[in-house]
């Protein structure tokens, strides 16, 4: 493992998990630098949760290794996980205990001072309901409590698995804001989510996993950058523009979107295309490279319909 990787918040090297014949995670090599907000994406069953579980020492890798905050998880889980907060799959609590007592259990297990509970409850706005038993909590409240539990050890690395599940739009926005504020304080966030719009808003880098294999990894902006599509908005009727564009030999396709056209052509031809349409008497109101969305990219990479 390189020096850069060993200094990273997370570094996996050929991390593999096999259940009988099924390969859940296939030789995953990934590095997440300290202070990054990293999105970990993939369809259901892609191996995201298994990867998280291996990072937390809950699942034993079949091969390869995982290093968290510079410490090998398998060799020294206590040290590796001391400054890690994790929320994995659905929130899990003792239903007969109050939210507060559930956090007390985790404080005792983690060697954390109990005054910290009030702080994290405040952050997730659960102070007023903390003394009620968890069995009466809604899904959203359990989700907030799980986030509070994640923040208890004041973690340097935070692993979040679908943190906004069950939250209303306002709650989702608050969590997004919380992730940003944690990142601003230098925390590393490893975010698994199906909410691609959310990931696109908060993550700097993403990795996409499918059937245990890493399909793509990189800066969000770089991954979404496409050099073959132009977004063109025409004033008035676009039918003449479509006919003109299709006649060009270097345009390989024209798609109609809500209020604009997507022209499949090298973006280097933008000026030429603008001049051609203007000369043909078609006014161009807007012309820009089409960056696309993370959702489009995800569907394209994973081959989903």
């Amino acid at each position, binding site marked *: 493992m390189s020096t850069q990787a060993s200094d990273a918040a997370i570094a996996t090297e050929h991390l593999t998990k096999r259940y009988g014949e099924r390969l859940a995670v296939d030789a995953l090599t990934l590095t997440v630098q300290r202070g990054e907000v990293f999105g970990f994406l993939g369809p259901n069953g892609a191996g995201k*949760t298994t990867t998280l*579980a291996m990072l*937390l*020492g*809950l*699942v*034993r890798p079949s091969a390869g290794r995982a290093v968290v905050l510079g410490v090998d998880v398998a060799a020294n*889980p*206590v040290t590796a*996980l001391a400054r*890690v907060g*994790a929320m*994995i*799959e*659905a929130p*899990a*609590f*003792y*239903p*007969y*205990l109050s939210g507060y*007592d559930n956090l*007390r*259990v*985790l404080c*005792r*297990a*983690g*060697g954390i001072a109990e005054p910290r509970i009030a702080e994290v409850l405040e952050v997730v706005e659960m102070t007023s309901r903390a003394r009620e038993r968890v069995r009466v909590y809604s899904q959203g409240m359990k989700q907030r409590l799980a986030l509070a*539990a994640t923040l208890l*050890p004041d973690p340097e690395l935070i692993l979040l698995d679908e943190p906004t599940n069950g939250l209303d739009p306002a709650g989702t926005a608050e969590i997004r804001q919380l992730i940003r504020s944690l990142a601003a304080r230098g925390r590393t966030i490893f975010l698994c989510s199906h909410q691609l719009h959310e990931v696109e808003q908060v993550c700097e880098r993403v990795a996409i996993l499918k059937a245990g294999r890493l399909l793509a990894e990189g800066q969000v902006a770089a991954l979404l950058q496409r050099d073959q599509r132009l977004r063109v908005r025409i004033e008035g009727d676009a039918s003449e523009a479509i006919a003109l564009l299709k006649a060009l030999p270097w345009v390989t396709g024209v798609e109609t979107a809500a209020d604009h056209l997507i022209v499949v052509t090298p973006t280097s031809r933008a000026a030429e295309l603008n001049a051609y349409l203007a000369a043909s008497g078609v006014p161009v109101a807007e012309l820009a490279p089409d960056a696309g969305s993370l959702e489009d990219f995800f569907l394209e990479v994973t081959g989903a319909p």
Partner: protein
Amino acid sequence: MFTRLFAAEWLKLWRRPLAWAMLAIFLGLLALSLILWTLVVALHEGALGISLTVLREEQVAEIRRQLSLPGIFGMVLGQVNSTGGILAILLAAGSLGGDYSWGTLRSLLSRAPDRRAYLLAKTMALLLGLLIGVVLGLLVGVLIALIASAWLGLPHTLSVRDLLVLPIGIARALLIILPYLLLTLASAALGRSTLAGIAGGIVFLIFDIGAGSLTSLGLVNPLIRQVINLLLQPNINSLVMQNGQLFGLDQSLLTNALDPTVLPAPFQATLVVIIYSLLFGYTAWRTIARRDITGAQ
């Protein structure tokens, strides 16, 4: 790590309604059996205006001893090892099985990843809970014995020696429960559920009690006796008997299974119970240490 996890396990146990329900059932059953014993003696002596003699004189004398100090200690400890054992199985199964079925094992072990310490902390917290249950049982027993003795005029001969050997009796009672407790934890870990824990503990208990009833076959042939005495139940019976003897009781007068002529010697009984405990404890530890920890079941 052990201390932290023990504190967490204790908080969970202390706040768990199941634990209080088990304690209430145990104390209720104990009180009921003491009241029934008192009525048996009262009927035998005609204290209720009716005289009913269904037991032999020496059996009634044994019950009188069980309702007096220090015999009440032996009686309560005997109850701990019968009904208390079953309730301990239910509590232990719920304790570990709940962590699997609610998915809380993941939360705990991702914060305190020493699985050996986790199992040890859980076992010690359960034993501490049982110890408190035993002490409360003794207090309830003494209280009822004092009332019964005031009514029936039973004599008390409590000595310093009785109080000094009481901790030995309590420790022995907990040792008797330990293999069942650890087997239950191993079963809950293997089946990843409360139900598996209960099934493992209770099925073994039934099988073991059934096999223990073969003890009388030991009278036929010494070799058969040696083999049967390697089972858990005869050794448990031997330790229960010793706990009774510690406080002047002879429980063989009331229970055929406690025939001292065929039961294993005290040293063997202690050794066999410890070996079974180690075997079950190792199975539980190996299962928890080696298995992947999955989500809620």
